C-alpha cells in the first residue's frame, strides 16, 4: 500500500509518500516560518492562504521524486485536526478532491497521532507499549501508547505549552521567530550558575506541567536587570536558566511517567523534541531507568507530511476510510481515537 500524506494543520505545508513495504519514498516541506517572523507567531489566515498556494506543487514534486504515478497510489491521508480550522480545511479539501477525482480512499488523520507514531519511521523503531512525551508549540502531553491508536493521556500542561513558553521567552530575549532554536543557541553561551529558575510542579505528585510561570520568571529577571551593563551576557544567562529549568522539569516528569506505567521505552515527539539539551538529558534518563529513549530525526519532530502518510497508511491498512464529505476539527481529544486494526 502506497499513501500520500498531507499536513496543513498550522504553519507548515508538508507532503510525503509512504509505502508499507518500501518505507518513506519522498517528502517535501514548505515552512512558512520566514513569513511569520515579523509577527512573532503563527498568523492564522496568512497560514491558510499560503497552504493553498503550496500544497499542489508539493504533491507534484513528491510524486516526481518518488518516481510514482497515480496508478500506484492506494490512498490519501490528510490532517483533520486539531489545529487552525482555515489551515486544516486546505489539506482536507485538497486531499478529498484528489481522492475523489482518482477514485481512491481517503482517511482523516489526527495530527498528534502523527507525531506519536513518527518515531516508528526510524530504525530501530520503538516497540509498543511505550511512554511518549509530546512537546510542541501547541501541546505538552505525556501519553501511554498501548499500541497504535490506543492512547491514554497521563499528563498535560495546565497552562502554556512548552514550545509556546520557548517562543514567548525568546521574544522577551529579542530573538526572532521561531524562537526555540535561537534560544537554544543563545543558551549555549549562558552561565548555568548565574540564575536559578523554578522547576514548576515538580514538588507535587502527578504528571501535570505548568510553564507560564517560567516565562513570567524570565520577564521579571530581565526587568530586574534592565540596567545591567552587559545585556548580551544577561540574555544568554537567562536563556540558559530558562532552558535548564524546562529540561529538568520535563526529565523529572518523564522519569515519574516511566515508573508509574512500569514501561521502559520513552519516545519523544513534537518540535521541542529537536532541542539537543533535552535529547541528551532524556537519553541519559532512560538509560538510568534501565530503558531506552527514541527520538525521530529533527525533521520528523516538527510538523511534516511523512508522519501523516505513515499514520494514514496504518489506518487504511486497517480498513479505515471515509467516503465523500469531510470535516475538520480545531479540537479533537487524542483519547477519542479507536485502536488501529491490524492490516
Amino acid at each position, binding site marked *: 500500500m502506497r499513501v500520500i500524506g498531507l499536513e496543513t494543520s498550522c504553519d507548515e505545508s508538508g507532503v510525503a509518500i509512504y509505502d508499507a513495504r518500501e518505507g518513506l519514498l519522498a517528502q517535501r516541506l514548505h515552512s512558512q516560518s520566514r513569513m511569520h517572523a515579523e*509577527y512573532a*507567531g*503563527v*498568523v*492564522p*489566515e*496568512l497560514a491558510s492562504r499560503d497552504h493553498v498556494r503550496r500544497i499542489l506543487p508539493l504533491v507534484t514534486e513528491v510524486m516526481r521524486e518518488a518516481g510514482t504515478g497515480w496508478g500506484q497510489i492506494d490512498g490519501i491521508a490528510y490532517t483533520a485536526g486539531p489545529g487552525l480550522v*482555515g489551515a486544516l480545511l486546505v489539506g482536507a479539501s485538497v486531499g478529498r478532491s484528489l481522492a475523489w477525482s482518482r477514485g481512491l480512499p481517503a482517511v482523516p488523520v489526527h495530527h498528534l497521532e502523527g507525531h506519536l507514531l513518527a518515531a516508528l519511521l526510524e530504525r530501530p523503531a520503538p516497540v509498543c507499549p511505550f511512554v511518549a512525551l509530546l512537546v510542541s*508549540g*501547541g501541546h505538552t502531553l505525556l501519553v501511554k501508547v498501548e499500541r497504535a491508536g490506543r492512547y491514554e493521556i497521563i499528563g*498535560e*500542561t*495546565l*497552562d*502554556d*505549552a512548552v514550545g*509556546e513558553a520557548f517562543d*514567548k521567552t525568546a*521574544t*522577551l530575549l529579542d530573538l526572532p521567530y521561531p524562537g526555540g532554536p535561537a534560544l537554544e543557541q543563545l543558551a549555549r553561551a549562558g552561565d548555568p550558575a548565574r540564575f536559578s529558575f523554578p522547576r514548576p510542579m515538580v514538588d507535587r505528585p502527578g504528571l501535570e506541567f505548568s510553564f*507560564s*510561570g517560567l*516565562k*513570567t*520568571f*524570565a*520577564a*521579571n529577571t530581565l*526587568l*530586574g536587570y534592565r540596567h545591567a551593563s552587559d545585556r548580551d551576557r544577561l540574555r544568554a544567562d537567562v536563556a540558559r536558566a530558562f532552558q535548564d529549568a524546562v529540561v529538568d522539569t520535563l526529565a523529572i516528569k518523564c522519569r515519574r511517567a516511566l515508573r508509574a506505567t512500569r514501561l521502559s521505552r520513552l519516545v519523544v515527539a513534537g518540535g521541542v523534541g529537536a532541542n539537543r539539551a533535552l535529547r541528551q538529558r532524556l537519553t541519559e534518563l532512560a538509560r538510568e531507568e534501565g530503558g531506552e529513549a527514541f527520538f525521530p530525526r529533527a525533521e520528523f519532530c516538527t510538523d511534516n507530511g511523512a508522519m501523516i502518510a505513515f499514520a494514514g497508511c496504518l489506518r487504511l491498512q486497517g480498513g479505515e476510510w471515509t467516503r465523500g464529505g469531510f470535516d475538520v476539527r*480545531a*479540537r479533537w481529544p487524542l483519547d477519542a481515537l479507536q485502536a488501529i486494526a491490524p492490516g
Partner: protein
Amino acid sequence: MEFRAASEQEMEAFGARLARGLAPGLVIHLGGPLGAGKTTLVRGLLRSLGWAGAVKSPTYALVETYALDDILLHHFDLYRLSDPEELEFMGLRDFLDGHAICLIEWAERGHGILPEPDLRIGIRPLGTGRDLRCDPGTPAGARLLAAVIETLAADRDGRGAG
C-alpha cells in the same frame, strides 16, 4: 482607578473579585506585556466561578471557552493575530453575542474590529509585583469596577473588625 497585586496569589485574588461583579455580555480587555499575569488573573476569576479544570493559555488556539453553570466565558488571546480582519475569519461576531463574557488579551491587535470594552485592565510589572489600572468604558464596566472596590472595602473592614 489603580490597584496593586504584590504576588501571583494576589493577582488570582483580584480575578476572583472581578468574578463577583460579572454580568452577562461584559467584555473586558486585559493589557500588559508578556509574563505580566493576564492569564493568571483569568485563572483566579475562573476558579472563583467554580471552574476546577485547567486554564490553558489560549495563544495557540486563539480562544478557550468555558461553559460554567449559568455563564459562558470566552478567553481570547490575539497575540498571534497580524491583521484585525482575521477576527472576522475567526467568527468573532458569534462570540460577542451579548450574553457570553469575553476576556480579551492583546486586544490592541484587533483594533478597529473589536468593539470598545466595558472595562479595560492594564497590568504593569513593577519589581515582582504588578500595578493594575482599570478604566471603565461603559456604565456596565463602571458598575463592575464599583463592585470590585466594594469587595475590597468589605474585606478591609472585615479585617479591621476581626
